[in-house]
């Protein structure tokens, strides 16, 4: 049997519902694990110990009275520190907001708490989901539990590190250009960037309004489905929110996958300038697994990755600068070096360049959707290889290889990162599963089927 802190959310939910596992004991197990290793991992920037234990006692009492709210009731999670939490400091990992205590929960946090989760604390992030892994912020950068010399990825760095190391059962993340999927891949967990407009961003600090997406991160695709169930839903106070019927993601994720049609976007990651040989090998093996599951696989061609990269980079830099201009001008010293310098690059872009990037984005969206006419899902690499070392981090990482995640921020499609093996050094590798807008359920279904058919979910980091 797994240690309590390594139970999946689905396993823990089953045991809590059967009154075979106490939420209080579960919360204590996580805090014991945090106390034992987080001084090396730095996944948390703030612990919510007393309130979490009080919530666990309340959950236990409710469940004992037969008032089980559902699968998330009594499950401990962490919250990325750009999500507003009522009465709990929300710093965005920045000196600028070091004493900021919101009065209200972000809408998705409110929904998660209503579903019964217990908030263990606030998780490290790149500053404002943008500047990291930086050395001059109020809290240390989170580290990768598979090897502490390597980055966990970002910007949802603490979320990825904490889940992999068993410091929470699940976590919230946000994804503007890959900030859920990159750390999910680097830390060997699962993370879905839902369809743009499915999960409310209200109360979550913005980075780039036309790309920002909130979503769940967890050890498995099934657990992501459980969290997404609570997080998804229309919010009239988020102008991007869409009023669609929310399916039963968990039930959908468990359905058979035979007969699904998958298009492989090889030109994103194959060839000399593509992903590492280990990543290419793992994706090829993953495609064999999917064929064995009865999935039809063919190649598809999307627009060039560099085209997505160019449009996406202009949009992120322009919109992020608009958010930060006033504070950046008045108090630049309160930003970390990486945020400060990256944000200033946005000042050098023109309105025409931003407009043309948004226009080109629409062209790319239409070409991508057309390429999906004959398939249900896409698969491509998530990261080029395993997590880089801290020593290799750059202030401006934008002018090398284009991000593999950015295309699906531009198109708004759901995109899910899952572990597909390990490199020779034991670091996790990952692929992306991409679906049609608002078909997040099918994306999670394929992720779950693949995880069930492979051994990667049995392996945890050595920390």
């Amino acid at each position, binding site marked *: 049997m797994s240690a309590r802190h390594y139970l999946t959310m689905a396993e823990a939910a089953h045991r809590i519902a059967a009154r075979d596992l106490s939420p209080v004991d579960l919360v204590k197990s996580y805090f014991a694990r945090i106390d034992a290793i987080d001084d090396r991992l730095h996944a948390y920037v703030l612990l919510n110990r007393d309130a979490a234990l009080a919530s666990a006692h309340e959950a236990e009492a409710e469940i004992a009275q037969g008032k089980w709210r559902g699968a998330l009731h009594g499950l401990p999670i962490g919250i990325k520190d750009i999500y507003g939490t009522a009465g709990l400091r929300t710093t965005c990992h920045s000196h600028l907001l070091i004493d900021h205590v919101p009065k209200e929960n972000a809408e998705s946090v409110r929904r998660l708490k209503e579903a019964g989760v217990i908030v263990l604390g606030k998780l490290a992030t790149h500053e404002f989901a943008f500047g990291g892994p930086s050395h001059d912020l109020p809290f240390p950068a989170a580290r990768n539990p598979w090897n502490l010399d390597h980055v966990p990825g970002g910007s949802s760095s603490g979320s990825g590190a904490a889940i992999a190391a068993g410091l929470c059962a699940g976590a919230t993340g946000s994804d503007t250009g890959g900030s859920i999927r990159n750390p999910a891949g680097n830390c060997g967990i699962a993370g879905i960037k839902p369809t743009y407009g499915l999960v409310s961003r209200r109360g979550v600090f913005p980075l780039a309004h036309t790309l920002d997406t909130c979503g769940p991160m967890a050890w498995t695709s099934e657990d992501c489905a459980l969290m997404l169930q609570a997080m998804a839903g229309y919010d009239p106070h988020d*102008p991007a929110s869409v009023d669609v019927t929310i399916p039963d993601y968990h039930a959908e994720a468990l359905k058979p996958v035979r007969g699904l049609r998958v298009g492989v976007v090889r030109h994103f990651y194959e060839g000399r300038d593509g992903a590492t040989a280990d990543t290419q090998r793992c994706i090829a093996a993953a495609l064999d697994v999917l064929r064995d599951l009865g999935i039809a696989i063919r190649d598809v061609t999307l627009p060039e990755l560099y085209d997505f990269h*160019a449009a996406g980079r202009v949009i992120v830099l322009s919109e992020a600068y608009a958010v930060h201009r006033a504070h950046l001008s008045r108090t630049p010293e309160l930003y970390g070096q990486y945020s400060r310098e990256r944000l200033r690059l946005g000042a050098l872009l023109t309105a025409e*360049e931003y407009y043309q990037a948004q226009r080109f984005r*629409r062209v790319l969206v239409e070409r991508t959707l057309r390429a999906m006419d004959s398939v249900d899902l896409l698969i491509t690499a998530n990261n080029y290889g395993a997590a880089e070392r801290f020593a290799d981090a750059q*202030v*401006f990482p934008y*002018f090398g290889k284009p991000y593999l995640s950015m295309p699906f921020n531009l198109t708004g499609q759901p995109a899910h990162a899952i572990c597909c093996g390990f490199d020779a050094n034991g670091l996790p590798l990952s692929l992306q599963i991409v679906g049609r*807008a608002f078909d997040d359920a099918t994306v999670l279904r394929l992720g779950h089927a693949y995880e069930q058919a492979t051994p990667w979910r049995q392996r945890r980091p050595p920390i």
Partner: protein
Amino acid sequence: MENPVDISPEDFATLCRTLELRLSPEEADRLRRAYSGIKTLIRRIPRDETFMPEPATVYAHPGTRLTAS
């Protein structure tokens, strides 16, 4: 490799003064190189010069609501 967009340190300093960006010499040097990088990347974005473009492909805001499939 495409020729990168270049800007002299003097012209870049003038641009930064205009935009009221206060930079140390090291920051200015890094930002000037990043400026060259982003402006070179932007060349990939075709500039639409159609005087009366198709509304659906040009004016639709990408942040507008997606249609459920």
